[in-house]
């Protein structure tokens, strides 16, 4: 660090020894180049930058890792003092090597360079990186900066929310709240929340702001001055009344009400103090109810201080924690007598959020009673009251089946092969079902939307011994192969509720994305990968909370069950095509050749549903067919913008002079619904036509499980002309140009 002060008199400049040394160091694969540059940057930053920008011409010769390292250094050297020439050089570099730049480097440029001088290529590089790494805080900060520069307020707010989700540090959420104030309104429905406390609870405010916005609400939060809770509620002239809160939270610590708890007070003293404490809180709640009529949420009492008797707690009389629990029960009874007062179980929340029970320093220094690490959980607990008060409670949870209500795919694994039972894997799903079974008691409906053969799925629902949710638990059932947005729309119609009353729960990210794109009014829950976390994911949902459950709510559920009916309605084809296009599905179709035999044979063994003849070819047979000119094999690898699906479809055709015959055609059911089968059939049809065939035939053997493939030939213009020994023969003339390749599917050829 002291190098800057004692700057040695070094000759730099092109052609100098130092310049050559830097080039040599850069070209070496080890870290010496980096070290040399860092040293030079300290000696003479301006000269260093000049050398780096000049040297970058030699970048092409470097190995990728070295090139990336150098690029980061070069870009990192460009600051606010960059000259126009530097910026031109930077622009050239980013245009050429943008893809090799690190997220930090690009984000740093956006932060450091003023909008006017920042090359457009830098902004574009930031956006491109963000598309691929949308969880990267540095890039999200850059996106916020760019949105603010352009005056795109809504985008800026959206990115601020995203930043709070990926980086929930107190400093970050505080910064987010500050930026939002500068940005101004987002135009969302407003909510007014008041916080009253006997201690410092300021740190929950930015988290509460964030959680409200995640719900689509624009909060105004009133934090009453420190320890004025009693006066604020009682005094008609206090700010609280003028604020007119939609929801208020009252947090009073028992350590503030009864300071003697830190010692070992006598039983009689404790009882007197407790009665007074409960009396004060109840009085405040009563007053609030009297003039407000809005919900008041009261923290259950908790103490940061452990009981005084060590291991004899609970042995010599009642333990401190049991005593506090009893106190809270008395408080609950008192609050129940008031129309809209709720008790927030704070001891339970602190226990579950896994934070230290007490942060003594902040308790003394800043009068905090709740550890800062618990603030995000506290804010999430708060919005579970805010959401129902603002009418955000949904009515119906629509559930997928495979890998959501049980582990595995019933169509593949069979009713006895799925994971559902007492042991793990399987026990997670039973627990999740037990939780779901409680929802009707809170006034929520359950429904099913599953891609399955109805017979397979219903066999499990009706007959599996570990199944908790039987058919009668569901108010609507859609088990078919139609797109799920269509099924949810029809469920909403059947139940006579809006699609904006639905919650969609599905383990498959593609299905979730489809739903978000086509029916954004449906609340699509981002489910965790691990089924053990399903239960708590839904438990935490503010939209699954009700401030009251009426007898009508429970009755309605019975009515729905009684007149369950099946109705179907198509989502407009135009929007489905648009969705498919946005998925950026790509396929790579090739022959069945050597390294693929094992995977292809595995598909033949495992695929039951989308399989036209269910003929099982093994590796040895495939090897033989591959060398036989009378056969042609096709493999298909697929991917979309969410990732790579791998080799997911196979077809075998028998080659005739005039007619090719599809002997086998199978596809993993993971990729049903993207038109991938059309891409493969189109390719076979084009190959056949190229080699002089005038017709394509397809064989189909009905099995118990291959309903999903049932209409494949019909959909592609084949006509059934024969049925011999259970083998259907379908035929399609190729004179019309054959089967068209789906326009929304790309091939590697397109991108090259």
């Amino acid at each position, binding site marked *: 660090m002291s190098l800057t002060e004692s700057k040695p008199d070094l000759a730099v400049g092109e052609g100098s020894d130092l310049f050559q040394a830097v080039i040599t160091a850069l070209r070496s694969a080890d870290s010496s180049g980096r070290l040399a540059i860092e040293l030079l940057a300290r000696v003479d930053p301006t000269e260093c930058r000049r050398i780096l920008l000049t040297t970058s011409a030699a970048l092409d010769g470097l190995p990728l890792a070295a090139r990336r390292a150098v690029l980061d250094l070069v870009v990192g050297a460009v600051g*606010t003092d960059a000259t126009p020439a530097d910026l031109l050089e930077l622009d050239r570099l980013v245009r050429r090597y943008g893809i090799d730049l690190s997220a930090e480097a690009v984000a740093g440029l956006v932060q450091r360079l003023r909008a006017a001088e920042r090359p457009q290529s830098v902004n574009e590089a930031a956006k491109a990186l963000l598309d691929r790494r949308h969880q990267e805080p540095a890039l999200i900060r850059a996106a916020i900066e760019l949105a603010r520069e352009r005056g795109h307020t809504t985008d800026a707010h959206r990115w601020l929310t995203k930043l709070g989700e990926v980086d929930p*540090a*107190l400093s970050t959420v505080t910064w987010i709240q500050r*930026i939002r104030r500068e940005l101004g309104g987002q135009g969302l429905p407003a909510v007014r929340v008041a916080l009253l406390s006997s201690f410092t609870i300021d740190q929950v405010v930015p988290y509460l702001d964030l959680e409200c916005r995640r719900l689509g609400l624009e909060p105004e939060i009133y934090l009453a001055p420190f320890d004025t809770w009693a006066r604020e509620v009682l005094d008609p002239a206090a700010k609280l009344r003028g604020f007119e809160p939609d929801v208020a939270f009252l947090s009073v610590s028992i350590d503030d009400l009864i300071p003697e708890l830190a010692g070992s007070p006598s039983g009689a003293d404790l009882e007197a103090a407790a009665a007074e404490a409960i009396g004060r809180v109840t009085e405040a709640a009563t007053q609030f109810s009297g003039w407000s009529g809005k919900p008041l949420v009261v923290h259950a009492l908790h103490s940061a201080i452990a009981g005084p008797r060590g291991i004899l707690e609970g042995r010599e009389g009642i333990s401190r924690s049991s005593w506090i629990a009893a106190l809270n029960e008395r408080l609950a009874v008192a609050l129940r007598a008031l129309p809209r007062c709720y008790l927030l179980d704070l001891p339970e929340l602190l226990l579950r959020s896994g934070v230290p029970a007490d942060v003594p*320093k*902040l308790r003394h220094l800043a009068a905090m009673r709740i550890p800062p690490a618990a603030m995000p959980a506290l804010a999430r607990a708060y919005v579970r009251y805010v959401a129902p008060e603002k009418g955000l409670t949904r009515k119906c949870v629509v559930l997928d089946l495979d890998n959501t209500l049980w582990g595995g795919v019933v169509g593949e694994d069979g009713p006895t092969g799925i994971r559902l039972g007492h042991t793990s894997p399987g026990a997670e799903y039973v627990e999740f079902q037990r939780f779901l079974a409680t929802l009707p008691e809170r006034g929520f409906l359950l429904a099913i939307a599953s891609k399955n053969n109805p017979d397979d799925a219903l066999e499990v629902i009706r007959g599996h011994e570990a199944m908790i949710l039987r058919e009668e638990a569901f108010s609507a059932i859609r088990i078919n192969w139609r797109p799920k947005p269509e099924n949810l729309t029809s469920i909403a119609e059947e139940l006579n509720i809006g699609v904006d009353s639905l919650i969609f729960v599905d383990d498959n990210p593609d299905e979730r994305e489809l739903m978000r794109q086509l029916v954004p009014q449906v609340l699509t829950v981002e489910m965790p990968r691990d089924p053990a976390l399903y239960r708590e994911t839904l438990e935490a949902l503010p939209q699954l909370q009700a401030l009251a459950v009426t007898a009508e709510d429970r009755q309605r559920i019975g009515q729905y069950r009684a007149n369950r009916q099946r109705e179907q309605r198509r989502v407009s084809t135009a929007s489905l095509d648009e969705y498919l296009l946005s998925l950026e599905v790509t396929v790579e179709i090739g022959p069945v050749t050597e390294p693929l035999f094992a995977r292809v044979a595995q598909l033949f063994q495992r695929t039951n549903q989308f399989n036209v003849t269910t003929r099982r070819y093994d590796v040895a047979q495939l090897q033989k067919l591959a060398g036989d000119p009378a056969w042609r094999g096709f493999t298909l690898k697929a991917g979309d913008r969410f990732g790579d699906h791998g080799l997911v479809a196979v077809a075998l055709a028998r080659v005739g002079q005039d007619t090719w015959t599809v002997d086998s055609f199978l596809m993993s059911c993971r990729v049903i619904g993207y038109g991938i089968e059309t891409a493969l059939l189109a390719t076979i049809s084009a190959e056949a036509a190229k080699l002089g065939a005038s017709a394509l035939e397809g064989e189909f053997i009905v099995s118990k499980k291959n309903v999903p493939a049932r209409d494949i030939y019909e959909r592609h213009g084949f006509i059934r002309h024969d049925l011999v020994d259970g083998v259907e023969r379908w035929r399609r003339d190729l004179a019309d140009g054959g089967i068209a390749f789906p326009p929304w599917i790309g091939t590697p050829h397109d991108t090259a």
Partner: protein
Amino acid sequence: MTPPEAVIARVFGVSADRVTDQTSNETLPEWDSLGHITLVIELEATYAVSLSAEETLTLTSVAAIKRLLEERGITW
């Protein structure tokens, strides 16, 4: 590791070039008492240190924060 200047800039929501060795609660208007508590929470989280109340009251400048971290053997 994140340098203390960056933590401070983030806590008070100011650009990094406004935080130098000379910065203190007297030169930076955003450095108020509530912000100071946030700073203490973030310093403890970032550098995995525990600061006593007395220490936190002396950490009112960049120089003091760096000095204390260096005493604890923390580098960045």
